[in-house]
Structures are given as structure tokens and as C-alpha cells.
């Protein structure tokens, strides 16, 4: 074994840095999903009748649906009745009124994760709605946001404070019967984030939520709903990390975005769930439905994601471009290592005239991992003047991994232009040689090359996320030379 191979093994064998479990007393329902469970969750959260009815309809539909298997991911059968669908950290009161009321162990967890809640919030001007398992426990900068008329709160709170908005928009982008996992989420979601930006308001700060799976044998079913009213603008940041587990955990989130006339939504994600060990044991199953609708003229939705974690990733953040001149964007870096499997991509559905979309996807595969880009660009007959540009590149590191590209291009309007290009390659020996002979270490050279490979995506991230994403890439792949 060469020194290079040895180094590669060492790097790949490195443990998950965020792997620890916080010992907090949880309030967990017994495993299983039925009408009783749904009624329990709904009652526990004091939900209005319309939401309970909606959940029950979703549950009914879910019972009739089959788990999809078209994605290029393989995992043992999931027993959905063996999962507990509600887990809430116990607090001394009904809900913390400020950070000082939050369980200190929980705050310590965030510290271990490197999430400097107070400092970061102050220094970067970021409001944080931190979600721990399924219940929001800390929210900052609310006053400043309220001043601007922005509603940014846990979903369960929005149900109480703005039921009319929730009723109007919930399920309007991702209906409860959209797919198997969306139906599951619609029935069983426990919390998430809600954002409403009033007309003409530019959100005064980046909005950020941290998700974290904690209690064992619990699924995480987040529901996020963001509505940008006419002429508004919002940038939303989502980051995830999870403790080490031996058993697989299920994450089935739904994110719905609505952009009305001239509104813009930028949704950024750094996903670093526990990916399982080198033998593929453990890790998060991440089945996420993310979709945005550009309903208004000149509206824009931009998805940016850096996916480094999860054992299984099944995720296709999409844009439905309904409004004339609306714009959809998708920027993605997906890194898989060891036995990770990712099947991710996007859908751009062009319905309005002069709609435009851009897709930039970078897939990096190492070890025995499988990384698939699956994307659809569909131009409907009414989308005169529509344009799409897609670029998806794959980088392979090592002889045992796989990189796959599965685009679908459907064009039904003769005035539309769709362009797609893709490439698959490995880190060139000439590139490495050049870097080494300029004095760089092998590790730095690979980092630099990978960073350059992903540059067009990373530059789309907000500054603080870009730094975090760079670190994640380095941790995942440094020295991994094929």
C-alpha cells in the first residue's frame, strides 16, 4: 500500500465529528402510525380542526401509496410502524420565553456542533429558529423581524398565530398526495418553520434554522412553508447535522415555497446528517420533497444545496415557473463517500412565458458511494420564450464508486431553448502533478481541485455557509486521490 493509499484510508476512516448524543429527557409516543397517533400529535399541538382533517386525509392517502423505488438507492425495507412519530424535549415550562430558559444541555449541544447561537446571531445578523427533534426551542431577533412585518416562527406557532395563512398555503405547492414521503410528512409532521414576508419588504436579515435529530428511533418530519408576497425578498438558510447512531433514522421533510409577483426567495442548505460508518452501518435516510412555485410575474426562486451527509439522499428541490418572466435556479454540490448513496437533482417546470431556469450540479463520489443526478426540465406549450441551461458534472475519486447522470428534457414549445451538458471524470494526474510540483501538499492539492470543481455552486451560498461548506468538503474528501 502506498503512502497515498494509506493516507486516503485514514481520511476515509475518520469518524463523524458531530457524532454524540445529548442526554435530554424526551416525551416520545410509542412506535406506529395510525389515526390515533395523528390525533395525539394534533391535540398535543392544539391545532385547529382544518389541520387535523388535512392530516387525516394525508394519512388515508398514505395508506394507499407504495414506497417509490425508481431512485438509484438501495436500503433494507423500512418498517414505518416501528418508528415513533412524535418526540419533544421536555421543558420546565410550556415553552421557553428566551434563550436563558432553554435547557442548558441543549445549548451545549449546539456549542459542540459549532453553532455559536448568540455570537453568530449577533455578529452575522442572523435570526435563528433552532429546531431540536421536532419542537422549536429558541428564536431570536423576533422583534426586529416583527418591526418589518416579517413572520418567522415555528410552524406550530404559526398555526396558532396565523391560521389563515397556513390554511391558504399549506399543501398548495406540495399536495398531501404528491408522493409517498410527502404524504407521510403531511400526516405526521410535528414542527418546522414558517416564514411570511409582507408585500414590498426586503427581509432585514438572513433567516436560518438548524435541524438536528437527537432521540433514538424517532423520525424527523419537518414542514417548512415560506411565502414571499408581492415585491418581497428573503434569504433562508438551513443547516443540518445529526449525532451518530447504529440504527438508521428516517427524515422525511417537506419544504414549500411560494413567490408572488416580483418576489424572490433564496433557499440555501448545508446538509450534514450522519452518513453511516465506513461499512454502511447506520446513517440517516433523507427523503425530502422540496418545491417552490413562482406564482407571480417576475418572481424568482433559487435553491442552493451542499449535501455531504446522510446514508441515503432522495431529494429534488424543484421550481414550478408559473408566472411570466419568472426564474428558477438550482445550484448543488453532492458529496458521497464510503457507502453513501445520493439520488438528487431538480425539476424545472416551465409554464409561463419567458421563464428561465439554470441548473448547476456538481457530484463527487468516493469510496464505494453512488451519486446520481436526476433532473427534469419540462417546457409546456404555453412557455413561449422559455430558456434553460443545465450543467451537471461528476468527479470520481477511487475505482469502486459510481457517478450517474439521468436528465429528462421535455420540450413542447418551439420558441423555447433548452441546453444541457454533463461530464464525468476524475481528478487528473496532470492537475495533481502541477499542484505538487508547485509545493502544495497532496491534501491541499485535492482540496483546491475539488473546491475549484464546486466553485460555481459555492459562490451562490451566503458567506457564512460558504465557509462551512468548504470545511465540510475538506473533511469529507481531503487526500482522497484515486
Amino acid at each position, binding site marked *: 500500500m502506498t503512502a497515498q493509499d494509506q493516507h486516503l484510508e485514514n481520511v476515509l476512516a475518520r469518524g463523524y465529528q458531530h457524532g454524540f448524543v445529548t442526554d435530554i429527557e424526551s416525551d416520545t409516543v410509542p412506535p406506529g402510525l395510525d389515526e390515533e397517533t395523528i390525533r395525539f400529535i394534533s391535540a398535543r399541538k392544539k391545532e385547529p380542526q382544518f389541520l387535523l382533517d388535512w392530516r387525516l386525509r394525508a394519512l388515508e392517502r398514505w395508506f394507499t401509496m407504495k414506497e417509490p423505488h425508481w431512485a438509484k438507492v438501495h436500503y433494507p425495507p423500512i418498517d414505518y410502524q416501528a418508528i415513533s412519530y412524535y418526540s419533544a424535549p421536555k421543558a420546565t415550562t410550556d415553552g421557553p420565553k428566551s434563550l436563558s430558559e432553554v435547557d442548558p444541555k441543549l445549548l451545549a449541544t449546539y456549542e459542540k456542533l459549532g453553532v455559536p447561537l448568540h455570537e453568530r446571531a449577533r455578529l452575522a445578523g442572523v435570526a435563528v429558529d433552532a429546531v431540536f427533534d421536532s419542537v422549536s426551542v429558541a428564536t431570536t431577533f423576533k422583534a426586529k423581524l416583527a418591526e418589518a412585518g416579517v413572520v418567522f416562527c415555528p410552524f406550530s406557532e404559526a398555526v396558532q398565530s396565523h391560521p389563515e395563512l397556513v390554511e391558504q398555503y399549506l399543501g398548495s405547492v406540495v399536495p398531501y398526495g404528491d408522493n409517498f414521503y410527502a404524504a407521510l410528512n403531511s400526516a405526521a409532521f410535528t414542527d418546522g418553520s414558517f416564514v411570511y414576508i409582507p408585500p414590498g419588504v426586503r427581509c432585514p436579515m438572513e433567516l436560518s434554522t438548524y435541524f438536528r435529530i437527537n432521540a433514538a428511533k424517532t423520525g424527523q418530519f419537518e414542514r417548512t412553508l415560506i411565502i414571499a408576497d408581492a415585491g418581497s425578498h428573503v434569504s433562508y438558510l438551513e443547516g443540518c447535522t445529526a449525532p451518530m447512531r447504529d440504527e438508521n433514522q428516517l427524515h422525511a421533510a417537506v419544504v414549500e415555497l411560494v413567490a408572488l409577483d416580483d418576489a424572490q426567495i433564496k433557499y440555501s442548505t448545508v446538509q450534514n446528517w450522519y452518513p453511516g460508518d465506513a461499512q454502511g452501518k447506520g446513517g440517516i435516510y433523507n427523503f425530502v420533497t422540496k418545491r417552490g412555485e413562482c406564482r407571480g410575474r417576475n418572481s424568482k426562486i433559487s435553491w442552493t444545496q451542499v449535501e455531504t451527509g446522510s446514508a441515503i439522499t432522495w431529494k429534488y428541490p424543484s421550481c414550478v415557473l408559473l408566472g411570466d418572466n419568472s426564474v428558477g435556479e438550482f445550484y448543488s454540490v453532492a458529496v458521497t463517500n464510503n457507502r453513501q448513496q445520493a439520488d438528487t437533482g431538480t425539476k424545472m417546470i416551465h409554464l409561463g412565458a419567458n421563464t428561465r431556469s439554470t441548473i448547476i450540479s456538481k457530484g463527487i463520489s468516493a469510496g464505494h458511494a453512488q451519486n446520481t443526478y436526476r433532473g427534469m426540465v419540462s417546457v409546456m406549450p404555453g412557455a413561449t420564450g422559455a430558456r434553460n441551461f443545465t450543467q451537471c458534472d461528476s468527479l*470520481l475519486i*477511487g475505482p469502486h*464508486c459510481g457517478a450517474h*447522470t439521468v436528465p429528462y428534457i421535455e420540450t413542447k414549445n418551439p420558441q423555447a431553448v433548452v441546453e*444541457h451538458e454533463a461530464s464525468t471524470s*476524475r481528478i487528473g494526474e496532470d492537475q495533481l502533478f502541477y499542484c505538487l510540483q508547485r509545493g502544495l501538499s497532496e491534501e491541499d492539492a485535492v482540496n483546491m481541485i475539488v473546491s475549484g470543481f464546486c466553485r460555481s455552486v459555492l459562490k451562490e451560498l451566503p458567506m457564512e455557509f460558504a465557509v462551512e461548506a468548504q470545511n465540510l468538503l475538506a473533511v469529507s474528501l481531503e487526500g482522497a486521490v484515486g
Partner: protein
Amino acid sequence: MSSVRPPPVPGSLSQAAFEQRLRDAVMDAAPMLNAKLLPVSVRSSALNRALAAGLPQIRDDLWRYADLKFLGSAPWAPLPAAQDANRWLDAARAFLPAPLAGFERLVFVNGRHAPALSGSSPAVDADAAPVVPERTRHERFGWLNDAFATDLVRLHVTGQRRIELLFIATPVDAPQAQHPRLELAVLPGASLTLVERHLGDAGGNSLINVAAQLHVGRDARCVHLREQNLAAQAQFLDTLQTALDAGAEYELTQLVLGARSARSSQRISLYGAGSAARIHGVAVAQGHRTLDQSLLVDHVAPDSSSTQVLRGIARDRGRVAWRSRVEVAATAKRSAAEQSLKGLLAGHGAEIDLRPQLEIHTDEVRASHGATTGALDENMRFYLLSRGLDPETARGVLEWSFLADAISRIVDTQLRQLAEQQLLAAVGSTVAREALQ
């Protein structure tokens, strides 16, 4: 991935009705199925597999864009031989193109060998054994060819040969099924230039179900031009399998210009080290035609290479759909694959669906693809109009140049000229024709 548009439903035919139709067809066809060409055990096994596979399912991704509505009423039993053979031959002569200089000609009329229209070469080598390749469920209609083929071309090619195969369909009294079949082996070191043309008019509601298998031996070479230019109401199914040994070369050019509904399932397997495949395809869908092709290029051996250049035009309410997949196995180190797919939309009800796909299982590989769809470039059109061309001529020139990108890569001059002539007829560009002359 879930679809925005529901996938096509194969007519109103249920699975049970499809099975019954096949069983009835076997009863009708039994006296015509020559056991010397294909043993009964092969036919029986193929039929059972086809029955087990059933119809393509509505959500089967590989059949997503195919127009299979005709399966609801399509016949499967092959047409009995004509009682008055001259009637078929006379009808076939109307579709017979001029002979290609230097080519041996073999003509089949309504699925049966027509020696009167062919040259002196036999269609079947006496010492050649039947070739029935392994098929997947996606090649299910190939099984039905195995079961129902009434005649075939079975040759072992040595030395250098140039062969022209003509499959002519003529109108008959009742709906008919034809099962043209090719089994060709290009032996090591040999060279075959093959022209395979499907022409004619089988009449409404008839079905043509082709199965072609080629084996290109070590260091052998095969240049293959396929043309499907059937009448506008034809229903065409096609299964092509080509296997390449070490050092073999295969150049495939496909002209898909006719039929109301055409579906082709093709697999080109690079089993030998250093083997190479070059694939050029052109499709022009007019009227209500749906031209659907699913192509798999399977890199198994190291140092193999493949290129694909596919160009399609959809006019009126026509649809061109291409699924073009490259799979590179972990054993296929140092392989290279390139795909270029382009579609031109020339009608407000037209549709282009492109799926260039890569599945790569090793890092020592170079693979890339590009795909575009759009209308004719307005700047180019404006330039031609400004030079005095009328709109129709300008369109013809631009469409011709768009398609010529694929066929200009044909190495064999005679084949390239043949392809050019056929495309000029499809595009209708007199200016381009004059320029070529």
C-alpha cells in the same frame, strides 16, 4: 421521478387481453412457424417470456414516451404466404429502390424472402446455427419476433461483403404482422457493409416487429445503415442487439423517417477490449408521428469507446423521443463515451424528449454528453432571407444542415450519399440537393 404528464397507456388493452391475443396468434400461426429456422423450443420459450413480461407498464420509465396505443388492436400472427406470389411481388416493385452498386441484394416482401427480387446470394447460410440472444424485459418485443418470425437473414460473414437488405411491406386485405429478422455474425477480421431498409406500405393497423442481432468478431468491422421509411400509418417495433469482440468496430447510422408510431429498443455491448462503436441517428417526425428510441451502450471491456450523434426534428404534432444511455462497468477502465443529442421543434404541437444518461462505475473514464432543444436560429434564418432565399428554402437549408451534422460522419462514401438523398427527400430542400450535386 414522477411525471408531469401521465405516461401513455397502451390502448385499452388489458394484460389478460394481451395474453389472450398472443395465445390466439400462436394457434393461427402454428402452421407457418418454420422449425428449421428457429426450433420449437426456442419459440415456445420466447413466447412464455413475452407472456411473463406482459405489456410495458404505464409507469415504466423506458416506455415513458412510446405511443403504444396501437397494441390494443395490432395483430401478432404473421401473414400467411400469398397464394398469388406475383401479386405481392408486383406491389413490392413499386417500393423497390434502385440497386446499390457493388452490394448483394436480399429482398423480403411482407416478411418472406423474395428470391425473384433478390440477387443470387442465399439469405441463410446452411451451416449457421440459430442466434437467439439473451433479452431483457425491455426488449420484450424481440421475444415475440423469436416466436413468430417466418423467415430471416442468417449469415456468417467472412472476407469483405457489402449487403443490402430490403424489407418491403405491401398492402394486404386484412391487418397483418410481419416479423423481419436478422442474425448476422461478422467473423474475426472480416468486414461487412450492411444497408438495412424498411420500406413500403403495409396498410392500416398492421404491425412490423423487427429483431436484429449482430455479432462483430475480433478485429472485425461492421458499417450498418438502417432506414425506416414506412408509410404514414405504419406501426413499427424494433429490437436491435449488437455485441462487439476485442478490437471490433461498429458504425451504426439510423434514419428514422416514417411510420405513425415507431419504437426501437437497442443495445450495443462492447464486450471486447478496445472495441469501438459510433452511432449516428436522425429522426424526422411529421404529422402525428411518434418516433421513440431507447438506446443502451454497454461498456464492459477496458479501452472501449463510443460516440453518439443524434439529431431529430419534430414538425406539426410529431414527437421525437430519445433515451440514450451509456453504462460503463467497473471493468471498463480507460473507456471513453460521448453523447450529443439535439432536437429541433418546428411545430406548435410538436414535442422533443431527450434523455442522455450516463451510468459510470469506474473513475478511469472520460464521459460527457450534451443535449439541446430549440427552434431554428432566427439569426441564421434572417441571414438567409436577407440573401434572397424564400422562407421555405431557408428552412430547408437550415434543417438540412442541422441533420447533416449526424450523417456527415459516415465514413463510407456510398452510404453517406444514400443517407443524404433520403434526408433531402425528408427535409425537402432543393437548394441543398443542388449544392450536393
